């Protein structure tokens, strides 16, 4: 079986998952206590106007028919209207998505960049100071509430030291956003050669990125260390050493490449945490992403907006997992052979 077929099969596997997600988000809006029609009609509504709205929203139909209508809406990209902004939810989410993605991807890049070398070093030099540091980071990292870490960083680096800009969004007042290409302000700034804007956007990104990275550091470092230790004690490594290969080659090629596989698998779980923590970090740093949008919607009980947010986050999560699995197929030749 070739790689493409395996990847295609994996994509097909995601379909029932997405169906489950759609069912859950549908049930969250429709089958729970409370009458959405009465809610949308407002406090001063008459029974007639409630009935009219119920008809307009299709809530007088039986549940299965409502579900079909819901799926049809989703298929055309219609997530409903946000009552707080008056815009379609899909438009609002799409407009804010790049900000969230920029933050999340930057944080993941940062934490993988720190955690993987840390875990490898901790495993190679077991019980040295690097190992102790790794153990400390892992234990502290899982105990720190993300929003609390963020506030501490703001206090130290903004208020005390003055190194970081005010935690208010993606760009300070002095700069205008560069023309949108990728939606990532730092990259857009570089593309447009507006060095000032890019630098400013980068400075704004740094603290929330570090906050989120600190949170994801722990599971990645822990997994890297554990799987590296396992690889180091394996027989193929002993053979490689006995065959007289240089220690650098043994470590980097044979141990590290094999140790990387469980780490890639852990990334899926890490993504789940990151997308949740993202919401908290966005609130702390007034980051104009979809997390902040969801919190604003929650405060004013903007149903459609919250459900649209939950749905799009879940779909994003499924897509990320899909990417990871595809990556896995490319890295690990055994998957191909077994397939």
């Amino acid at each position, binding site marked *: 079986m070739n790689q493409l077929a395996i990847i295609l099969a994996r994509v097909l596997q995601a379909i029932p998952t997405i169906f489950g997600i759609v069912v859950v988000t549908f049930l*969250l809006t429709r089958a729970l206590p409370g009458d959405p029609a009465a809610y949308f009609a407002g406090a001063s509504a008459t029974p007639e106007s409630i009935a009219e709205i119920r008809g307009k929203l299709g809530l007088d139909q039986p549940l299965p028919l409502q579900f079909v209508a819901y799926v049809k809406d989703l298929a055309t990209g219609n997530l409903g209207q946000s009552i707080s902004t008056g815009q379609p939810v899909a438009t609002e989410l799409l407009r804010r998505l790049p900000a969230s993605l920029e933050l999340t991807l930057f944080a993941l890049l940062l934490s993988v960049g720190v955690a993987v070398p840390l875990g490898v070093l901790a495993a190679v030099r077991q019980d040295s100071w690097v190992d102790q540091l790794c153990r400390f980071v892992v234990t502290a990292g899982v105990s720190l509430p993300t929003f609390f870490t963020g506030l501490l960083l703001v206090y130290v680096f903004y208020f005390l030291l003055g190194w970081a800009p005010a935690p208010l969004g993606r760009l300070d007042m002095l700069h205008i956003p560069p023309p949108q290409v990728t939606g990532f302000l730092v990259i857009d700034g570089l593309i447009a050669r507006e060095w000032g804007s890019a630098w400013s956007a980068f400075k704004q990104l740094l603290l929330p990125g570090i906050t989120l990275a600190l949170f994801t550091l722990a599971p990645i470092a822990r997994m890297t260390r554990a799987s590296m230790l396992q690889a180091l004690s394996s027989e193929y490594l002993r053979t490689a050493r006995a065959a007289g290969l240089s220690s650098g080659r043994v470590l980097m090629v044979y141990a590290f490449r094999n140790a990387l596989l469980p780490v890639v698998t852990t990334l899926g779980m890490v993504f789940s945490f990151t997308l949740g923590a993202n919401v908290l970090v966005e609130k702390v740093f007034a980051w104009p992403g979809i997390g902040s949008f969801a919190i604003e919607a929650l405060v004013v009980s903007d149903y459609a907006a919250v459900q649209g947010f939950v749905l799009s986050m879940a779909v994003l999560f499924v897509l990320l997992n899909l990417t990871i699995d595809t990556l896995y197929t490319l890295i690990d030749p055994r998957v191909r052979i077994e397939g």
Partner: protein
Amino acid sequence: MTDATYIPQPAAGTKRSSAWSRGLAHFRYVMTSNPVTFLAFVLLAGMIVIALFGPMLVPHDPLATISDKALKPPSAEHWFGTDQLGRDVFSRVIVATRLDLLISVSAVALSFFVGAAMGACAGYWGGWFDKLSGRFLDTIMAFPLFVLAMGIVAAAGNTIQNIVIATAIINLPFYARVARAEVSIRRNAGYVQAARLSGNSELRILIWKIMPNTLPPMMVQLSLNMGWAILNAAGLSFIGLGVRPPTAEWGIMVAEGANYIVSGEWWLALFPGAALMLAVFTFNLLGDGLRDLVDPQRRT
């Protein structure tokens, strides 16, 4: 609590007492060889005492506002300073312990029992229930869990009760999976077959013969999960769900204090945040310690 992790095997009286003493000896060994676990037990005991008696011990009324004493830094009278309404932060942090522990303990207990029952049935009988519950758990896990909790609370209504339910739902898969795995490897064990032959009903075997043996790994999962449950519940109240002001709760206190961080009033957010961190830290250490106690092979 530690004793509960060592369920003696059903055996003759003399063997039982020796199993107990061996368990105790192992407990003592783990405690002395790992002082960190001992520290975690001490911290847990301290937290329970504070949760039970805290409201009686605090120096000030946690809800009393004194406007001319607003935003005062920590002093001899107000150890953790006062907040924007002149309330004593120390008293509020202490009083909040009960609510925070209550939310997370009831959420975890709920998902522990429901998850154990679900996983046990799925693991013991298999069949359609196993498939159905497996699909259900997979669907929960397909969501970013904190986001799902947000969605549940938003739909079901913004109350503390719904925070507990939402936290319980997102924790459910972890317990159900452990229970399923532990039950399914034991369902045809020798002692189960013996029990079946001597005429015990299937339900009786599952509840009285198999479940007690799955308790140790479940307990480990429980304490590893507890910290995460606290973090989630506090995260939900940080974004304004569940607990409403002026109730003292760590998450909402950090949220209120967040507005004053940029102007340098650090004590509002720092102390409740530190209390939260300490609680999570305690449960994580405890979880690692319990795992060493139950399963020395999985030590990392």
